[in-house]
């Protein structure tokens, strides 16, 4: 730092002031501060009536510190997050939160990156929000290590001082692809490891960017954890099945289905149920919020939902069947095939039984007949 042009940077990481304190320290008056607040408000597009609130926020609030951890993942959650269109991610990063650690975007590497992490964990103990992308491999600490430390240790340490935890994506909330059979690394979602903190699960592979931003905004704007469903997902985005909000639903109810890829029914936008659409068993906001700023969502673009926000969705049978296959019976062994087989076996058994009855119980039957005939006499 020796040749740095701005002295202000020197104690940046040791002392954090609110904006008001900061301005006071630099000799500005309260009036200057209020003026600054109205400029700020205008800058971020707020009307003058909320200047008071802005001032209040700047007087009392620092941007909430956030640590974003990466474990076993593919970074699609980070990628999705930066795609959000409301609010756009630059505003979140510059104005709403202080993202003090994220391997994907932060400037510093190595020791300097770890310093950022530890500074926040110490200075904001009990205050920071921990966001987790990725699962934890429990089979061996060597399966995911950062800075020579196992992901499990890192998670436990970071979780200890967290105010709340957000489990981004299916990796962190249900283990996602790496936990699919045979789960070679014993990839484990974080709620199975951290039990004593509120965890908001935001599943999806990845979750929709606007949904991710929506969860963050909810936390900040309403200063509360959004209401969660019985699986720990925010009700605001996960209380409806894709199927219940799907615009192709009328086709489903009318029994109009795409029978094979690119057939005339596909070209008419019929329901994709018979090609394996998992919309009927998937809770997500895709059909309403849609993807990438409302451009489309899987079904609108002709492919069924693969159920990417559901627990265990990778093992829920083949993609192109809407029902799981019977495990252990080979490919194309669905419940119906096995059922038909069982029913057939029962029918065959019955036929055999009927024949056997007429042989083995002949005397009995004959004596019944005889008795009946006698009765008639």
């Amino acid at each position, binding site marked *: 730092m020796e040749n740095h042009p701005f002295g202000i940077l020197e104690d940046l990481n040791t002392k954090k002031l609110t904006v008001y304190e900061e301005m006071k320290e630099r000799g500005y008056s309260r009036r200057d501060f209020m003026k600054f607040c109205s400029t700020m408000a205008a800058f971020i597009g707020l009307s003058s009536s909320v200047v008071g609130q802005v001032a209040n926020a700047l007087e009392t609030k620092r941007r909430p510190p956030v640590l974003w951890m990466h474990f076993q993942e593919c970074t699609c959650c980070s990628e999705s997050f930066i795609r959000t269109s409301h609010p756009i991610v630059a505003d979140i990063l510059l104005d709403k939160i202080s993202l003090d650690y994220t391997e994907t975007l932060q400037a510093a590497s190595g020791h300097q990156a770890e310093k950022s992490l530890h500074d926040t964990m110490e200075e904001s103990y009990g205050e920071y929000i921990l966001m987790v992308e990725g699962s934890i491999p429990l089979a061996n600490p060597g399966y995911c290590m950062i800075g020579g430390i196992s992901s499990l240790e890192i998670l436990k340490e970071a979780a200890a001082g967290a105010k709340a935890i957000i489990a981004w994506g299916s990796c962190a909330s249900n283990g996602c692809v790496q936990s699919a059979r045979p789960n070679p690394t014993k990839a484990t979602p974080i709620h199975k490891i951290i039990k004593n903190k509120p965890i908001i699960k935001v599943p999806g592979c990845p979750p929709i960017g606007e949904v991710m931003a929506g969860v963050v905004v909810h936390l900040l704007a309403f200063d509360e954890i959004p209401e969660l469903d019985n699986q720990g997902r925010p009700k605001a985005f996960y209380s*409806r099945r894709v199927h219940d909000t799907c615009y192709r639903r009328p086709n489903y109810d*009318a029994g*109009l289905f795409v029978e094979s890829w690119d057939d005339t029914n596909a070209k008419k936008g019929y329901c994709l149920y018979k090609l394996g659409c998992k919309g*009927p068993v998937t809770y997500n906001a895709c059909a309403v919020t849609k993807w990438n700023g409302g451009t489309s969502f899987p079904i609108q673009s002709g492919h069924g939902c693969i159920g990417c926000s559901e627990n265990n969705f990778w093992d829920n049978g083949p993609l192109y069947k809407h029902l799981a296959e019977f495990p252990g019976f080979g490919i194309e062994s669905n419940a119906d095939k096995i059922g038909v087989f069982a029913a057939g076996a029962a029918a065959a058994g019955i036929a055999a039984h009927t024949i056997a009855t007429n042989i083995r119980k002949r005397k009995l*039957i004959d004596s019944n007949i005889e*008795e009946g005939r006698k009765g008639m006499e």
Partner: protein
Amino acid sequence: MKPGKEFTEMTSRSVSSNMLYRPMRRIYVFQVPTRIFHWINVVSLMSLIVTGYIIGNPPALLQESEASQNYWFGINRFIHFGSAWIFTVNWIFRVFWAFIGANKWENWRNFLPLSKKQWKEAWEIIKLDVLMIKNDTHLSIGHNALAGFSYFIIFIVSLVMVFTGFALYAPMSESWFPQLFNWVIPLLGGDMFVRFIHHASMWIFIVFTIIHVHLVMYHDYVEGRGELSSIIGGWKFIEEDILENKNKSEEQNTENEDK
């Protein structure tokens, strides 16, 4: 036949019986509520199987119509859900009846294989009627122990259907009853698996029905005691002598137990 012999022999009809004409006793085995239950169960279940199968494997019908002109698949689901309500309420009623109004053949005890006697009887039935390694018949005035056991299993599978079905139904309903099953989905890990269980278990009913109907007719055919009509009119017809023997042996058995 004298009391004290093997239980099954006491209650079975010997092939070598040389009686030419035997008086029959008419016994009111299934009361009206049981019979009504049975047939409501049959009809709603048939409806559930057909509509359920169609939900799982929709045929390509009316492909030329517009979605707005047509609602057959929705109606199919509606029938499924309607039948599901009837099916569920009917079962609740039957369980209730088994405790409060049932006669001794309809009583809940007949369905739970709790006593050694029932297990023994079931094994006997297997030998007599399934494997036919014993050439004889067995008298059970109500259903036999093996049948009772199969109804118990069907009761359990019905519960599975109700729990999984209403769990799947809950998100489409505002009513309180389906909401009681909200916990099922997180417990089993997701809708997909719940649906899988729901679908696969359907085949248990189908297989049961095939075998059950066959065995009912088998008994009617081999024993001639009006088995089939008992679930319609309520009556069965039992040979007086055999019935007396059975009653005696049962007394004997209880006396023995008392000692």
